[in-house]
């Protein structure tokens, strides 16, 4: 997994609440057996018209946001389906940090498995960051995961919370499965005990 420690980049504003994973990556693109190549279809139905032409008004089609690495969005981002294709598409496009007031649970977890940092901040701070993002390509936002801060293009600093284990894995690009396999003895003994106490399982 790619590491995430610091990032300074363009933030794209997407001020909608309840952005669901069907919006992020519609189902027709789930018929892949790979993890890569989904960036071109990120937000597909908002991004292209019926003839596959770009819709110029959509934020990621605007010249100043084509290279965005940060997305600032509304409440309950990533709700709906568990499809990991959503963070795969986001990362493949080049966005590695999302900032929103809240996230749906499964999406939030999926981000950390794919080198994406989802930052949750109160609505008032999101409002400030949304305005900053609306300034366009010259206004670069900075994220420091170690320090747990977001800094606006004006130098205003906001602190965010993140689970210490998730932070550690993201900063070091660690593979969860490898870490869990180090605890194989604990799993073995749990399994042996469960085979006695709940043999029907």
């Amino acid at each position, binding site marked *: 997994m790619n590491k995430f420690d610091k990032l300074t980049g363009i933030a794209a504003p997407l001020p909608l609440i309840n952005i669901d994973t*069907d919006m992020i990556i519609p189902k027709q693109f789930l018929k892949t057996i790979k993890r890569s190549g989904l960036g071109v279809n990120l937000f597909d139905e908002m991004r292209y018209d019926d003839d596959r032409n770009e819709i110029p008004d959509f934020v990621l089609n605007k010249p100043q946001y084509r290279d965005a690495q940060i997305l600032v969005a509304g409440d309950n981002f990533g709700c709906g389906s568990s499809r990991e294709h959503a963070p795969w598409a986001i990362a493949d496009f080049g966005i590695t940090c999302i900032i929103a007031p809240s996230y749906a649970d499964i999406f939030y977890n*999926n981000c950390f498995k794919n080198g994406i940092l989802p930052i949750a901040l109160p609505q008032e701070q999101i409002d400030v960051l949304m305005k900053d993002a609306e300034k366009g390509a010259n206004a670069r936002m900075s994220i420091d995961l170690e320090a747990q801060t977001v800094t606006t293009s004006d130098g205003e600093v906001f602190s965010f919370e993140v689970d210490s284990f998730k932070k550690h894995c993201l900063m070091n690009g660690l593979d969860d499965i490898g870490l869990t396999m180090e605890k194989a003895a*604990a*799993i073995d003994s749990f399994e042996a005990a469960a085979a006695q106490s*709940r043999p*029907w*399982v």
Partner: protein
Amino acid sequence: MSPKTLYDKIWDAHLAHEAEDGTCLLYIDRHLVHEVTSPQAFEGLRMTNRTVRAPDKTIAVPDHNVPTTLDRANAATMTEDSRIQVEALDKNAKDFGIHYYPVSDVRQGIVHIVGPEQGWTLPGMTVVCGDSHTATHGAFGALAHGIGTSEVEHVLATQTLIQKKSKNMKVEITGKLRPGVTAKDITLSVIGVTGTAGGTGYVIEYCGEAIRDLSMEGRMTVCNMAIEGGARAGLIAPDEKTFEYCKGRPHAPKGAQWEAAMDWWKTLYSDDDAVWDQVITLKGEDIAPVVTWGTSPEDVLPITANVPAPSDFKGGKVEAAQRSLDYMGLTAGTPLADVEIDTVFIGSCTNGRIEDLRAAAEILKGKKKKDGIRAMVVPGSGLVRAQAEEEGLAEIFIDAGFEWRLAGCSMCLAMNPDQLSPGERCAATSNRNFEGRQGRGGRTHLMSPAMAAAAAITGKLTDVREMM
């Protein structure tokens, strides 16, 4: 001992390891797998030379992509990419030695219907699947939730999941439901109260007389949509109905093991003095037959209401409501019962079980769908289909002008050929009314099977109570 909720009890029974920072490894009893969210996970195992740790606890069935038309045995009915995904599951199931119900098997169906039907899902278990509607299995008092593909790979390799404990929410539905009100109306009404993010960070336990009165099928409908309220999982404490449903199922315990299991299952309830982080109470008699008007499951109103105006809302919801009305092609103030529909879809993991088909058939018996309406029934499994045929329900649907399909997820998420066209308006018994969910530009109104059947007859959103 300190009092515990049902969630606490299941959690404690599955805690394989707890690190100093509180990060836990939860042991997984059942891992359900389907073709869309698993190929990358199996590929990951191959690339790292890992195996499936507990193939006997891993069950796979293709459901999302599969065509539901009667000619599906002909591979040409599937698009190339769908076929590749289903074939990948065929191969992965064989290579890794996991339980498998291929498309050709009469037991094939939607993974969340097959699990309980075959007795894989039992009280007190932990159940995961790379699908958000895994919450369905909570109806058995099993801790069940959706996971992403990386987590699918993690469970395949280690039979555990890295977790932090959620908070406890109690949702109590007191008293009796009124005639015409169903489990679907309960679960949509709860989301109407909590919003789609209201459950975030919680496991919900549904309780109260109206929940106890529901059949297992109804309870599965309620828990299925816990995720639509943002909750990690929904739970209902097991009782005699649960045990009766499980007894004799192919993979349920038998003999002495059944007795041992029952001894434990009977302890699976929240203690009277358990502490809840949040409690929501609805009166059963206050719940009406509901429909959704917008593009989020929280956009729910009684069928007797009018389409709301954006100004009825606050904050970010004002803009969201305007966007929803534009997308749905609706005008504020229009009575919902005046909204004309084009299509009716009865099926999905929310409402594709035998009781759902009975409820719809009850309304359709001796009647016809309105001319010009496209209507289909997609049973949740091959066995549901067979039972519906045996009970004469299939005949009622066919006589009413419905298409009688084979089992699969179908138009709930439109990954197979069953899709809405732009602007096509659908009365659907599924679980999501998101933009584009049932096909680009498609307009979805969520409701119960009986309400969807009523809509097929009149050609518009209809109060089913007028037909009872």
